[in-house]
């Protein structure tokens, strides 16, 4: 008296907890991503409240933030660029090292979200363009720092906005 449906039932039963627990974890990842993004914004705003009225763009094109981030891949790529820029910024009043770590965590969260959605992430292609960063920082460090932090905020706001209705890569 063999029951052909039994293995199938067992298989379904085995997978049931996985399906049950997955939404909970992703929801937590989403919530943590939002909270962490807001935390980074608060860190920047707390010490660096000035927002440039007219932002110079000449020569600063390599710093992302002018275009909205609409994919997890672009978020990760953008954050990667900022991770390269941040350690060079001469901003003593901003906890740059902490923001760097926060971005590292944020990238991990975004990658976790992406892996859940089956996304693939690319290494930043603009990293090569950071070659003149050192020169810019030497020539006009304040401009570079202000613009970089301002654009980072813009990117983070864009991430928060996008996370509300994230459904694909």
């Amino acid at each position: 008296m063999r029951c052909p449906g039994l293995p199938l039932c067992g298989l379904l039963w085995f997978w049931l907890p996985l399906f049950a627990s997955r939404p909970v974890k992703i929801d937590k990842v989403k919530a943590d991503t939002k909270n962490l993004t807001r935390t980074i914004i608060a860190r920047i705003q707390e010490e660096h409240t000035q927002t440039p009225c007219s932002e110079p763009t000449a020569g600063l094109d390599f710093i992302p933030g002018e275009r909205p981030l609409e994919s997890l891949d672009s978020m990760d790529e953008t954050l990667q660029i900022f991770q390269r820029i941040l350690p060079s910024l001469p901003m003593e009043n901003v906890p740059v090292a902490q923001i760097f770590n926060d971005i590292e965590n944020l990238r991990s969260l975004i990658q976790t979200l992406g892996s859940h959605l089956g996304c693939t992430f690319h290494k930043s292609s603009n990293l090569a363009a950071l070659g003149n960063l050192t020169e810019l920082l030497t020539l006009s460090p304040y401009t570079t720092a202000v613009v970089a932090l301002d654009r980072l905020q813009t990117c983070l706001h864009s991430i928060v906005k996008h996370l509300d209705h994230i459904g694909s890569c």
Partner: protein
Amino acid sequence: MYWPILDFIRMAVAHCMVHQIPASSFMLPCMSQNETSVIPLTAGVAASSPGLHGQHGTAETNSLVLVAEESFLCCLWSETHANCSLYTAGMETKKFTSSEISSLAPQQTDLSWNIQCWTKGDLELFVCILKLSNKKSYLNEEFKINLLYVLSELSLEDMSTGSLKGNFMVTPCDCNGSDKYECHIPSLKLNYTYITWLNIINGVTLLQSPLMLVRPINIVKPEPPLNLRLEMTDKGQLKICWSNPVLTPYPLQYEVKFSGNATQNAWQVVEIVIETSLIIGNMLIGSSYLVQVRCKSLHGPGFWSDWSTPYNLNAEDVMYFPPKILTTVGSNVSFHCLYNDKNKMILSKKIVWWLNLAEEIPERQYTLVNDRVSRVTLFNLNATKPRGKFFYNALYCCNQNRECHHRYAELYVVDVSINITCETDGYLTKMTCRWSTNTNALLVGSSLQLKYYRSSIYCSDFPSIPPKSEAKECHLQRNHYYECTFQPIFLLSGYTMWIEIKHQLGTLESPPTCVIPADVVKPFPPSNVKAEITKNIGLLNVIWTNPAFPNSDLKFQIRYSVNREEILWEIFEVSNAPTRSAMIKVLDLCVVYIVQVRCSGLDGLGYWSDWSKPAYTIVQDIQAPLRGPEFWRVINEDPIRKQKNVTLFWKPLMKNYSLCSVCRYIVKHHTSENITWTEYVTNGTTYTYPWTEDAHTVTILAVNSIGASSMNFNLTLSQQMSTVNIVQSLSAYPVNSSCVILTWTLSPQLYVITSFVIEWKNLNEEEQMKWIRVAPNISKYYIYDHFILIEKYQFSLYPIFPEGVGNPRMTDGFIKDRSEKPNDAGLYVILPIVISSLVLLLGTLLISQQRMKKLFWEDVPNPKNCSWAQGVNFQKPETFEHLFIKHPEAISFGPLLLEPEIVLEDINVAKALKSEDKQDLLAVDSVFTKIQDSEHDSACSSSHFSNSLSESSHDDKVSEGITRQSNIKYATIISNCKSSGLYEQQKNLRGSFNGCFLGEDSLITDSFSRSWEVGNQTFLILPDQDPSQASKMIAFSVVSSEGFSEPSDHDDIFSDGDSPERSLYYSGLTSVKKNENDIFLTENSRVMCHLHTNDLFKDIGFLQDTTSDLNPFIKNSLKYENSVKTFVPYMPQFQATAIRLPETTETKT
């Protein structure tokens, strides 16, 4: 100055004119240029600057000095080739040649050096040893040698001119003996390429080596292996193990050699292994073999290390593997044992294991690894308890006959459960972790270190110790806690942390714990906290500003208290995030509140913040006063003007009514003539106005910044009502100096009382009159004030009607009686009960007396119907004599006066006695019976008593009965006895009386009597008394003819636990009329009556007085009594009656 040299080096490198230093020794021959047959030399030779000569250490060469025209050519000598180069002072290559080794014969060289260079095992120092092997005699003995080098990051193949770093360095070589020189290059960079050469100065002659190249990593000579030891495999095979030297930049290979005899120098290389152990089997055990190990790089070039310290394989009698184990609580460990007793190996199956020489380890924990090796496994170990200086458990491998060798294995079990707690600061930038250890539980010499591993995000469900970890420096605080700080942090990374405990016996690790900094945040407290009591609503409103971090939702706790010396906090929870304010309902609105707020993560993770700085509310008007003030009046009459002035005075409105202040009062007037006006009182709480009309109503309103009170008191003064007097009485009872009770009674009246006003004042002192308004529905009031009880006080009670104030009732002074127990509420309950009981008892006695009168004359028993009266001729004195004869047996009981005995006095008065029917027997029978045995009872126990006095059929026994147990006196007054059922009880008294009376429970006797009355028969039961008091106390008991029972002895009486009132004395005299006014005085009636002897005698006297017809009979009996000698012994027991009764009867007669 360096550039030419560097350029040359670059050129030389470019032309591969550099020779790599091998990981072995090599030769450096030098010859004069004259002898050089191959290479013509034309240029001069460069030398070091004079300043460097004889100088130790490393220095930069600033210039090169041409010291001689002729120069020597040094070549690198290998087995096959000799490469030679000659450089000028400008380091230009003059000649470079490579020839067969045969081209340079040893005799052609003037000077020859044997050189060996290596990197020391500490990886810090490059060493070159130059040993002079051949020298021509014309050369001086003294050489000065310098080693010059320059660094490059790249290998020789990748080397370019750009890779040469900085200036070349010079380090002089020390002379170590006559012909041995040692050169050092400190602070090595292992993976850099060093280009180096030697300058050898002999007098004025300079010898210069060709350029040499070396990467220190390639010529490392490691430190020798350490810690050689014997271990045992799971299969019981011995293996020699060792530890790697501390610094091993690459994998090592090892060479193990054994020596069969320590005295011989015959070493034998056994094997080259790549592991840190070598199985040697058990064959070498017991031999005197020495083992040594050395190591070198497994891959690539390098030197062999020196040999390690020899390890002697000479076996002990008992060998434990391992000899010592350091482990953690809860773990399992195994020990192996090889037992060699007097050169005879003990078989493993004959080995038993003991722990601490006190506990034999069960055999089931043994494993026979092979025929010679036994293994024991200990499970789930507990922490070792130090015994004196011994911090280990001693494990013994013993023979089966319990002979143990003195050697033992040591087992150290350490509790490593160390709790690590972390806390992230409010900025979310720093995480501080704390942990502490019980130093007593750790082994001496242990060092602790926090290790951690950070995962990218989150923690795993079951944290484990990963292979790679980092150490974190922690500092011991004053509170004996170690504190480590992570800053900056990865907020959402999982930090898996544990404590590594290092000891020479091994390394232990505490259970790992994983912490996510975001989950252990202790936020900053909310700021800008403000608190106020809201107007109109009257709630405590708290607002605050959230801390900047964290950005997740928060929950809050508000604690608030009235701001006073002793602060009693109340907590209010706020979790409806997001919120920054809360409204709290508070009782007292007109006080200053102190408020603090703290916050925590809404998800419950993390810690509560500290409390915020306190905020204080301000007392202000919340609402218009809830009501106006209570007020009263004083009327002063001006006889001259014939005018009455009324002074109103009121108590300041309390804050709970004023909410929260009163700025002024409004007095509203309304007269009987319907005139209305208002007056304002800003200061003070009194107001005076003339009273002219018949009725004048005033109302006082309280006003604050919000408005006027809506509920107010009013008072009507009416000439007409002032004469109404409804308070009937008024009494004041002092309780103590601070409380007086005022009680009053009211007379029936038609008026509606709205309230009372009580006035009081000390008449002896001119203090102000005090007053209070009380509710109309009470008749007692506790006045709390400071009273001087010896002073005179006047209390007045005013009834207040809607129509006006009534006439007061006054009282001066206190009533003292009440002051004794004013608070005894039970008094009001007990007193009526006692009084009613007394009344009831008195009534019962009176009624009983009246009934007894009738009984004595109506219910004389008919001897024909009463068994015990059968055959008794009451007219003959002999009969009575017979009745009162004491049984001879009773004499044997000793002194009569000491006998606790019962004398039953049965008086049966025939009804006919009272009538004139002389035919019926008129008898008053006093039966004095001593009961010897409880079974002998002369009482009439039948359910019916005869009308005639009869004697029991067992009269003899009855009369003989003398007992100490059944000490009951009773008298029976019998009437209307229809049956002659009096019989003697053959069984115990109690049992017999059960059949006689309605219930034994209804009878409780002690030294007093109680009465029963059922039907129309009456008994008097006289209980026994102490011999000393027997004559002093008699109790009467009126017993029903329906039957009665009495206990057989005192024990039975006292053992009756259901009769708590056994010590109470009951007496009852009831009517004998059937179904008329039956009064039961049973134990259930609980009527207490103390019958003293005198009273009893009075009662008897009363009976005698009222039954005068009885006297002749009594007289006769007494006469008879006096005439019978046998009666005499009983007389003292009836001393009182014997004295009084005759007197009474005599007076009556």
